[in-house]
């Protein structure tokens, strides 16, 4: 087929691939004929997109709904300072077109959902999971299994990462074989709370890109049925065995999940309640006004000490990290009118619930946390 033949320009560009016998002209032609759908163009998606584009994958689809933010650039290296504020798919597309104008790029500026996942994924040979939350991971898994496509998985937290290839059609397990159910919201901290070493997604995303290229060209031993663990602090790689669970609800012998479900509900995520009517919440603007009163509220910061070092709201009365709150309730006076804050309002929301259940009734959560305080009240307070 002429479409899979390599032009002289392509032969020059890919010459370091072509001179390896394992890859050769045949492998490079396979890459040119291949298509990959990359879900997420963030920390994992950045090195993935760059290396897959550079390698000459014929068609790459990019799915993301987010915009490039300054705080992304510590790790999301496909984007740049010049594209802050642009959609991540457009930003990535510009960089990738410059890196390799010989490939086709399609951007889908949308949030992948049960309604669109199968249609988005169907045209592609391979799915790569560069997402950052449990509902999208289960959605990506189930849709890949239903379509019979391999799903190259990677995940990161602080200094640790995991990678594997889920491919039930090749006899391997799927994500649900590994973890039948997600943790309830709040039990496992997210990167926004827990942080992440910027170079970590570089390592894990590059492993995913390696596996994608191996699967598409058919060379080497794929990471199917093996979970690669990486610990950056001890600089150790370890490998665990994964098995397909014959009772798995989606890839097992008698599957009970035959179509996509509501993944937010499956992960226990409920839609946010109406903010206006909630007596347990306060906006930064309202708080700023109350802090000027003589009867000012007691202002409790539930972040960690290293966050307090970065930025704080002037007039903070006390700092107790949310994890220590249960055993330090004795330090608080339930008679006082109290406002609780954290970075974004998530942890302080949990703190309000905890205090309510412990008999505190005059507690309010600062909606949007110190981030919105900086936006609405005092821009001199640093956002992180």
């Amino acid at each position: 087929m002429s479409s899979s033949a390599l032009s002289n320009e392509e032969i020059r560009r890919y010459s370091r691939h072509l001179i390896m016998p394992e890859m050769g002209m045949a492998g490079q032609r396979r890459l040119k004929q291949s298509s990959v759908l990359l879900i997420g163009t963030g920390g994992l998606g950045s090195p993935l997109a760059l290396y897959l584009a550079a390698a000459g994958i014929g068609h790459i689809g990019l799915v993301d709904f987010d915009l490039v933010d300054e705080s992304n650039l510590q790790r999301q290296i496909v984007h740049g300072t010049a594209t802050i504020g642009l959609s991540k798919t457009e930003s990535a597309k510009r960089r990738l077109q410059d890196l390799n104008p010989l490939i086709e790029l399609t951007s889908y500026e949308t949030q992948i959902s049960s309604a669109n996942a199968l249609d988005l994924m169907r045209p592609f040979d391979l799915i790569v999971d560069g997402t950052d939350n449990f509902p999208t991971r289960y959605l990506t898994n189930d849709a890949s299994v239903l379509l019979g496509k391999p799903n190259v998985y990677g995940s990161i937290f602080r200094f640790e990462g995991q990678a594997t290839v889920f491919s039930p059609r090749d006899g391997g397990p799927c994500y649900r074989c590994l973890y039948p159910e997600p943790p309830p919201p709040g039990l496992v901290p997210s990167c926004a709370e827990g942080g992440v070493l910027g170079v970590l997604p570089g390592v894990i995303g590059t492993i995913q890109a390696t596996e994608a290229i191996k699967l598409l060209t058919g060379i080497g031993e794929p990471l199917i049925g093996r979970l690669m663990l990486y610990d950056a602090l001890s600089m150790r790689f370890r490998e665990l065995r994964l098995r397909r669970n014959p009772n798995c609800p989606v890839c097992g012998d008698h599957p009970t999940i035959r179509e996509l479900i509501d993944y937010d509900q499956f992960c226990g995520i409920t839609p946010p309640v109406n903010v206006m009517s909630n007596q347990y919440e306060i906006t930064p603007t309202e708080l700023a006004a109350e802090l000027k009163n003589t009867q000012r509220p007691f202002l409790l910061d539930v972040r960690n000490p290293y966050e307090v070092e970065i930025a704080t709201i002037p007039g903070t009365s006390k700092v107790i990290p949310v994890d220590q709150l249960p055993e330090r309730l004795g330090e608080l006076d339930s008679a006082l009118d109290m406002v609780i804050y954290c970075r974004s309002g998530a942890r302080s929301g949990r703190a309000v619930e905890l205090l309510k259940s412990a008999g505190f009734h005059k507690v309010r959560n600062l909606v949007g946390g110190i981030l919105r305080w900086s936006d609405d009240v005092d821009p001199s307070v640093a956002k992180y």
Partner: protein
Amino acid sequence: MATITIPTPLRKYVEGRDNIILEAATVGELLSKLVENYPDLGQHLFSAEGKLRSFVNLYVGDEDIRYLQGEATPLRSDEVISIIPAIAGGTAR
């Protein structure tokens, strides 16, 4: 003595340690001793009914205990037990 490796998200419940060495004949005994020494870890490993949570996997060597003898899996003295929780990465949901 068996060595249990503790993943980053759970280290704050074990005084920041990345591994813990304990004497135990089976996985079940090891877990009981672990939670006895670090009670805060309990709710992250076990449900209210005392079952190992479905988003936490335990490995003896490189094998999942679900495919060995579960909590009855015997331990050699030099065994390494890994706790591998689900991690999603990225920003908050």
